[in-house]
């Protein structure tokens, strides 16, 4: 990983929202690196803060949201220190984004051509005519049939899959360095999902973009990503390359998540869910946020929040089991899998 140029480096990002019931920290310590030309998946349950993370990167938070802390280094420059005008030059140009809801993400009163052209006219100094021509090319690029006709359509005249293709065309208009895809396939039919994933992957290879792929679907991650950051309750809890993560997940949460997926390589009578619920952002556990649900949680886990530690391979994990301070057994059973703890666990284990 170190050999690759890091195009985006998010460090300890913290974002909160003011609500009627007080301040809610939706993102609390998110860090990850995106190497150039690679895809990173950000995985987590609903409410884990993954969408807020992506909106924070582009600084597109709703008016009650503020970024409290952290750095978002794009090509070495901290985006959080950029002026609003500088950010606007970046958005849709160098970093662009596609959203979860293709049905509502396009403006109903403008044609798709007008909407794609807008970014081109804005960032590439194209004339209306040039932009219109380029819009047709982009629609063709994302696999929309008879693009010269579609370009004059209004969003309501297109299906969900087509609209998402339009969104992708729009986000690619200015050849961005980074594409943030926020659950781009969640609202689509399964067959369309596969097509859209294929399209994003294909375009990434052709255009050499780096992609941040936000999803709750580990299957999608396995298919599309090079690296994965697992998020839980506003924090990155595990970061690894995709092979390592699927082959040997370390974090109890990740293991539980993978165990809850159906698999076709082994016999399964039933799927094993993770017990309990994501903690409420108003009432976060003091220690490790997963501790209340973790089968291996100890007093240490409940009392103190673990730090995100980087191992020799550059993978990161936020868990006491793999720290020197671990106070549980050295062989930890996590959802039927065994992990060897680091540290002095041997002293306290094996009472028999």
């Amino acid at each position, binding site marked *: 990983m170190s050999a690759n140029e890091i195009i985006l480096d998010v460090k300890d990002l913290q974002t909160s929202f003011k609500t009627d019931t007080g301040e809610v920290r939706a993102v609390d310590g998110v860090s990850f690196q995106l190497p150039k030309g690679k895809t990173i998946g950000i995985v987590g349950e609903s409410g884990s803060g993954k969408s807020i993370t992506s909106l924070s990167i582009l600084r597109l938070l709703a008016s009650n949201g503020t970024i409290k802390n952290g750095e978002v280094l794009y090509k070495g420059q901290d985006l959080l220190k950029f002026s609003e005008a500088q950010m606007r030059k970046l958005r849709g140009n160098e970093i662009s984004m596609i959203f979860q809801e293709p049905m509502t993400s396009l*403006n109903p009163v403008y044609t798709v051509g007008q909407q794609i052209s807008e970014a081109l006219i804005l960032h590439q100094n194209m004339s209306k005519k040039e932009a219109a021509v380029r819009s047709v090319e982009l629609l063709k690029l994302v696999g929309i049939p008879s693009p010269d006709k579609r370009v004059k359509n209004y969003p309501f005249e297109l299906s969900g899959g087509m609209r998402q293709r339009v*969104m992708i065309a729009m986000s690619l208009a200015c050849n961005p360095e980074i594409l943030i895809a926020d659950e781009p396939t969640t609202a689509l039919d399964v067959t369309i999902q596969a097509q859209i994933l294929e399209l994003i992957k294909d375009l990434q290879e052709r255009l050499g973009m780096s992609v941040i792929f936000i999803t709750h679907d580990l299957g999608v991650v396995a298919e599309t990503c090079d690296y994965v950051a697992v998020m839980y309750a506003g924090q990155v809890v595990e970061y690894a390359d995709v092979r390592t993560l699927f082959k040997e997940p370390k974090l109890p949460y990740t293991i539980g998540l993978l165990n809850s997926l159906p698999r076709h390589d082994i016999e399964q009578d039933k799927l094993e869910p993770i017990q309990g619920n994501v903690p409420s952002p108003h009432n976060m556990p003091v220690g490790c946020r997963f501790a209340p649900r973790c089968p291996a949680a100890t007093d240490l886990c409940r009392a103190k929040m673990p730090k995100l530690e980087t191992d020799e391979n550059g993978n990161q994990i936020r868990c006491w089991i793999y720290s020197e301070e671990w106070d549980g057994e050295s062989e930890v059973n996590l959802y039927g899998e065994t992990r060897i703890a680091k540290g002095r666990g041997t002293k306290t284990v094996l009472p028999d």
Partner: protein
Amino acid sequence: MTKFIIRRLLQTIPVLLGVTILVFSLMHLVPGDPAQIVAGEGASEQTVENIRERLGLNESIPVQYGTFLGNALQGDLGSSIRSGRPVMEEIGARFWVTVELAFYATLVAVFLGLIAGIVSAVRHYTLADTSIMIAALFGLSMPNFWFGLLLIQWFAIGNWMPESLEFLKMRPSGWGDSWRQIILPVLTLGTGGAAIIARMTRSSMLEVIGQDYIRTARAKGVSERIVTYRHALKNALIPVVTVVGLEFGGFLGGAVLTETIFAINGMGRLTIDAIRTRDFPIVQGTVLVISVIFVLVNLIVDISYRLLNKRIDMN
């Protein structure tokens, strides 16, 4: 589009028929014998009989309605009982005065209302928003006649704009002798409408600003100004257009008080005077004309609605 307009025009026919029935019934719904009422107390039997004959009241009701409708279709609404002049002529003399007043009042309402609504929405929950909304509440709750009197008190009596009281004499010679003549009546009529439009624009804008496609526009790198005016406003205007249309129609019919206060010889005054003197043909005529305009304004609203929102095509 032409098909839509034709279909929509056809739909107005039953509405207008209903209006003519109501207008026609006016004369018969008033308690007592219309001819007697018109003739006044103490009129001789012969006079009443003559009036009955002239108004065609001896025929059966359906026949009377048929005649009324037939004449109305040819632009003949009978003659004023008081002046003896044709109703259309009486209305024609006053019509443009009211239309002009309503037109300018609508302009004021749209201009003030849109600006206030947009500012309020863009800066929602700030001091500007609160002040605008309080002002709008005033504009909404203040009765026209009172606000009109206040304006006269403040501006006309203090000799700032005495011409405002001269409106009548200058009309209906044509457009715009001086803005000073029309500004006060227009403001009186327009502020209430401005308040409604401001509130409507604000809530509509706020709703639109929370939509996903606004976030998409921001993610494209579009400036806030363009987000507001190009992406949000066009969507937010759709419900506002309806209100503006209704306002204009309402101004035409509801200018009665304003016209009375400023002594403007418009249709409102005409109606009031006609009601007072039981000049039935005039009352029927003005109500019919105002209704027809209302229906037409609604038609225009529907058409502009479609121009703004292409999705209505599908229905």
